[in-house]
C-alpha cells in the first residue's frame, strides 16, 4: 500500500531470501505449491523455453564477447587474441564516435517525435465520436507495414527523381538529396522511422486514455476550466505508466528496429551517410569482414542499452503512478 517503488536492494533481498529458502528446502506456502513426484519433471517443462533462450540469446552473446577479444582473419582462417584492442579501436575511432553521437541524436528525436505525435493523435481521436472506428483503423493501419516495406515506401517519397517530398523541398528552394547529403538522409531516416512508430504509440496511448474513468474526467471538468490544465494535471499523470512503457519500447525501437529502414535508405549509396550503431555493427562485421571489431561494438551497445534501461527504471519509474 506504500507508494514508493521497491528499491533494487529490496528486490535483491527478497530474491536472496527466496533462494535461501529454496536451498534449505523449506517452502513458504506449501498449499499453493505444485508438487512434482520427481525433481526433474519441472525442468523438463522448462527445457524448451530454456533451450530457446540459450541458443538464441546466451550462446550468441558469449560468442560476441569472446570474438570481441580476437582479431579475425577476413576469410575465417584464424584468429589472434588482441585483448582490448578492438574496444580501444572502436572507442577512439572518429567514425565510431560520430555514429554514436548520431545514434543518440536520432534516438532522442525519433522517440520524442513519435511519442509526441502518437499522443496528440490519440488525444484527438479519443474526442471523435462519429466515425471513430474508421479514424482509428486508418491511423493504426501503418503498423501493419513491415519495416523494410516502410523503408521502401519512404524511399519512394524521398526519391531524388520522382519523390513528392523532393518536389516539395524544391518549391522551398532546397535541393533534397537523400542518400548523398548527410542531413537530408538523416531527415529522411527520421521521418520514416517516426511515421512507422506512430501507430504503435497511438494504440497504447488511446487505450491508456480510454482507461481514464469518465467520471474522473467529468470531475476535472468541474474543477478546471482550461482544457490544457486538465490534460496536464489529470490525464497526463494517469497516462504515465503507458508513457513510461512506451518510452522504453521506443528507445529500443530507434536503437535496433530501425535497421531495415536504414538499410533500404543507405544501402548502395556513397559512404558519407548517417547510420545508427546497430547498422555500423552489421556494416563493419559483414561488409567490412571485421568480426572482432564488430563484436566489440555490439558488446558496447549491449552495455549502453542495459545501462539506459536500468537508469530509466531507477529514476523515471519512481515518478510513475500505477493506478
Amino acid at each position, binding site marked *: *500500500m506504500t*507508494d514508493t517503488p521497491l528499491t533494487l536492494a529490496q528486490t535483491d533481498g527478497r530474491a536472496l531470501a527466496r533462494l535461501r529458502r529454496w536451498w534449505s528446502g523449506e517452502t513458504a506456502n506449501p498449499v499453493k505449491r505444485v508438487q512434482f513426484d520427481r525433481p526433474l519433471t519441472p525442468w523438463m517443462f522448462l527445457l524448451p523455453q530454456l533451450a530457446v533462450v540459450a541458443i538464441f540469446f546466451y550462446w550468441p552473446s558469449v560468442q560476441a564477447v569472446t570474438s570481441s577479444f580476437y582479431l579475425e582473419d577476413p576469410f575465417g582462417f584464424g584468429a589472434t587474441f588482441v585483448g582490448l584492442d578492438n574496444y580501444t579501436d572502436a572507442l577512439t575511432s572518429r567514425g565510431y564516435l560520430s555514429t554514436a553521437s548520431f545514434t543518440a541524436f536520432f534516438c532522442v528525436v525519433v522517440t520524442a517525435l513519435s511519442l509526441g505525435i502518437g499522443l496528440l493523435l490519440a488525444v484527438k481521436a479519443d474526442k471523435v465520436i462519429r466515425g471513430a472506428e474508421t479514424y482509428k483503423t486508418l491511423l493504426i493501419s501503418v503498423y501493419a507495414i513491415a519495416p523494410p516495406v516502410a523503408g521502401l515506401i519512404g524511399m519512394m517519397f524521398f526519391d531524388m527523381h520522382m519523390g513528392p517530398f523532393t518536389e516539395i523541398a524544391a518549391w522551398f528552394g532546397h535541393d533534397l538529396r537523400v542518400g548523398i547529403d548527410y542531413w537530408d538522409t538523416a531527415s529522411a531516416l527520421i521521418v520514416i522511422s517516426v511515421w512507422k512508430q506512430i501507430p504503435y504509440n497511438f494504440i497504447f496511448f488511446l487505450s491508456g486514455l480510454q482507461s481514464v*474513468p469518465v*467520471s*474522473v474526467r*467529468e*470531475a*476535472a*471538468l*468541474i*474543477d*478546471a*476550466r*482550461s482544457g490544457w*490544465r486538465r490534460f496536464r*494535471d*489529470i490525464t497526463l*499523470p*494517469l497516462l*504515465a505508466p503507458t508513457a513510461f512503457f512506451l518510452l522504453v519500447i521506443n528507445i529500443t525501437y530507434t536503437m535496433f528496429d530501425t535497421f531495415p529502414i536504414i538499410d533500404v535508405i543507405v544501402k548502395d549509396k556513397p559512404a558519407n551517410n548517417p547510420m545508427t550503431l546497430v547498422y555500423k555493427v552489421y556494416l563493419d562485421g559483414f561488409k567490412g569482414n571485421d568480426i572482432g571489431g564488430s563484436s566489440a561494438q555490439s558488446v558496447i551497445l549491449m552495455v549502453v542499452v542495459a545501462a539506459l534501461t536500468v537508469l530509466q527504471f531507477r529514476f523515471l519509474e519512481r515518478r510513475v*503512478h500505477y*493506478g
Partner: protein
Amino acid sequence: MAHLSLTNVGKTYGGSTQPAVAGVDIEIADGEFIVLVGPSGCGKSTLLRMVAGLETVTRGDIRIGDTLVNRLDPAERDIAMVFQNYALYPHMTVRDNMAYGLKNRGESKSVIEERVAEAARMLELRPYLDRKPRALSGGQRQRVAMGRAIVRQPAAFLFDEPLSNLDAKLRVSMRMEIRKLQKRLGTTSLYVTHDQLEAMTLADRLVVLNGGAVEQIGAPLEVYRRPASTFVAAFIGAPAMSLLDARVDSGQVMLDGHALAPVAHAPGPITLGLRAEDLRITDAGLPMRVDHVEELGAQRIVHGMVGDQSLAVVDTGDATLAGTVRIAVAPSKVHLFDSTTGRRIEAAAQPAPVPAE
C-alpha cells in the same frame, strides 16, 4: 448559496425521437434539499448532469441564482458534484484532491489551506490528508468526494447517487451525515437516487420522475400520504402500495363484492390503492386468503389474495395466520386513482360524513 430554477428543461439525444427528459419545471429555494427519485432510465441523472453542464440542454432554461447557465462550462457554473464512484483523482493525495478546484480558480494558498483544513475537520479526514485515494476505504473516499465539494463553497451541491456503492450499514450513517452537513452549510442541493428510502429521509422536497417527466413534486410525507398517481403510489413507500381494480357503486368503494369505504364519486371502475400499514386484521370486513407471511421482527407482512388480486397487510400480532382473514381500513386511508389515466382522484380524501348516533 443561490436558488435554482429549471424551466421547461428537456433533453433529446441525437438519433432519438423520444426525449430522455421532457419539459421539467422545478423551482428550488435557496438552501433547499431536493431529491430527484425514480426508477433507472427515468432521466433523473440526465437532468442532474444538465444542471452540472456535463450534458447539453436541448430545451428550456437552467438558472443558478440569476445566471442563465445553459451554455456555461461546468467549471463556470459555481456548482460542486459528488459522483457515484467518487471520481477522486487517483494520483493525488486527499489534500490535493480537495485543493485542485480551488487552485484552478486562483484562490490564495492561505485560503485553500484554511478551507481544506476546515473540511477535513468537519469530515474527520485529518489523519488521511496525505494519503492517496486507493489507501482509503469506500466510506472515507466518499467523504473526500464530499470534502472536494465543500471546499469550493458552491452555489449548489449536486449528488449523483453518492451512496449506492457503499454497504447498507454505511449507507444509513452517511445518509445522516449528508443531511446534517447540508443543514449546517445551508447549501442548495440536488440529489439523485433510485432508493425511495434515501429519498424520503433526505429530502425537503421530492421530485418523482417517470419516463423523463415529473410525476409529482412535494414534501416526502405529502408524497407518501397523497401520491399523485399510481406510479408514485407504487414507487414511494415500502412495502409498495397494493393497487387493485375496484368499482364505485352507490357511494361505496366495492372490492370483490364487499363495500370498503364510502366515497363521493360517480359509479364506475376505479383503481384502489391500499397501503399495507393502513390495513389491519379484524373480525369482520374484507375476506383475504393468506398466501405467505414475511416476518420482519417488529412486524410482519401478510401477503394474500382478494378474489384474484394480491394485497399486502402489515400485522403486529403473533397468532398463526392461515386460511382466510378479515381486513379493515379507515375510510380516510383509501386512495383512489382513475383506472385509465392513473391520476389521483381526490374524492377519497374527503371521508363521507359519519352519521350521527
